[in-house]
């Protein structure tokens, strides 16, 4: 059974600092997603990573995928308060069923 783990679970960081969120998964998969959820809101898709070595960047966020290590990272550069949210990675358990297994989520708080 596919397991997806994120760390840290909670991250409090100062504006302007850099940090990385890690997402490990237990079995082979060819698709990994990152989502953002603001408190009391829905989930918003950030990145879709489809191959080993894939790297995608949007603003201060950059996501990468290492399928051999079964690891994805979400790097935050020069954090700002607006990035405060919960970030989820999700891994496709099977290409044919589109069954996404979500990680535990990382709650990020950025303070001045």
């Amino acid at each position, binding site marked *: 059974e596919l397991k997806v783990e994120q760390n840290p679970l909670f991250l409090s960081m100062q504006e302007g600092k850099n940090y990385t969120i890690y997402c490990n998964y237990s079995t082979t998969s060819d*698709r990994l*997603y990152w989502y953002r*959820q603001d408190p009391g*809101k*829905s*989930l*918003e*898709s950030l990145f*879709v990573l*489809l191959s080993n070595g894939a790297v995608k960047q949007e603003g201060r966020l950059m996501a990468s995928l290492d399928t051999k290590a079964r690891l994805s990272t979400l790097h935050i550069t020069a954090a700002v308060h607006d990035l405060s949210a*919960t970030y*989820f990675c*999700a891994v496709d358990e099977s290409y044919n*069923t*589109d*069954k*996404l*297994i*979500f990680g*535990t*989520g990382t*709650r990020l708080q950025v303070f001045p």
Partner: protein
Amino acid sequence: DTAVSQTPKYLVTQMGNDKSIKCEQNLGHDTMYWYKQDSKKFLKIMFSYNNKELIINETVPNRFSPKSPDKAHLNLHINSLELGDSAVYFCASSQTGGRNEKLFFGSGTQLSVL
């Protein structure tokens, strides 16, 4: 225009009642899902339908019954509600078959069972 809309946004009810949550998507997607998010924010898939056909049915109590009248709608009916059913339920949709498809989520229905 809301891409994936679900109603109601909040649902407060007594134990033992039966309730329904409705979901509609206007994206033309062929697959729809129900996810449950518990109080610890953990998200777990419950069901998925592709063109009105049940594809994924996780180990969910029989009290939960999804119904898809057409590929743009996926409703969730819950019988004999229990305290443990309290959670946020998210509907989502995607277009399967491509490599880059992602899920589009509704705004969630917060269910509180008293």
